[in-house]
């Protein structure tokens, strides 16, 4: 059960809107998402947190020498090891 109210993507503006749009564009390409995923929505209450993690996401998941698949394999394994359901 989610312990926080999700930000409604329709009502946000400014920096948060910009990042939600960019994140959705990426997720649409990567796994065919049709709406912004909950992990980004939950950060939408804090533009600073959202921006910091989005920048790290781009830096660490999109800018390296490995292929997207190679990074995703490690990411999935880490999430399992951390026993993360999401």
């Amino acid at each position, binding site marked *: *059960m*989610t*312990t*926080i109210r999700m930000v409604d993507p329709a009502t946000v503006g400014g920096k948060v809107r910009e990042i939600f749009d960019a994140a959705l564009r990426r997720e649409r390409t*990567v*796994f*065919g*998402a049709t*709406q912004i*995923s*909950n*992990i980004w929505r*939950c*950060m939408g209450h804090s533009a600073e947190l959202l921006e910091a*993690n989005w920048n*790290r*996401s781009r*830096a*660490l*998941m999109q800018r*390296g*020498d*490995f292929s*997207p*698949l*190679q*990074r*995703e*394999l*490690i*990411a*999935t*394994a*880490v*999430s*399992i*090891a*951390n026993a*993360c*359901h*999401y």
Partner: protein
Amino acid sequence: MRLGVDEVGVTELMGVTEHARAMATVASAVLLKSLAGEATLIAPLPAGEGDPEVEALLEEIAEWARATLGQPAVPIVWRILARNVHYLRSTWRKEVALMAAGALPARDKRRVTLGVAMATRARYMIEYHTAVLRHAGDTDRDLLEILGVVDHYTTLNTLSEAMQIESDIRPPTA
């Protein structure tokens, strides 16, 4: 998990992940601290003291270590398991089967196991998998890239667990 990986690849990834986690548990449980070796909870079997099957398995592992780690010594974790032939045989056979190239290349699998060792902070297995990857040619920059993914996903995992975020990502249908 899209990016062109089918059920076989996903299952390979799950196998490699749980194996890495199991080995990290083993290494931490016996208080193995580093590849350099020091006192452990269970003493490693001294060379030449195993029964013929144990010695044959250890010789196989030594060959693997020469080819894959560039060192002749059997890593201590295997010498500890060598005190029980069933434990050693089943774990080593699993390692060989799961870590071989399949739908996923062997080096990508090893990068996954390093990521799991980092995420579970298992020092010995971090050194172990890193040694394999360095011998295969991975650079400091490559290792940092692995750490970056581990770090970032630990962040996302922490946030989503803290807020109990429900998954909105569904597996492909059809």
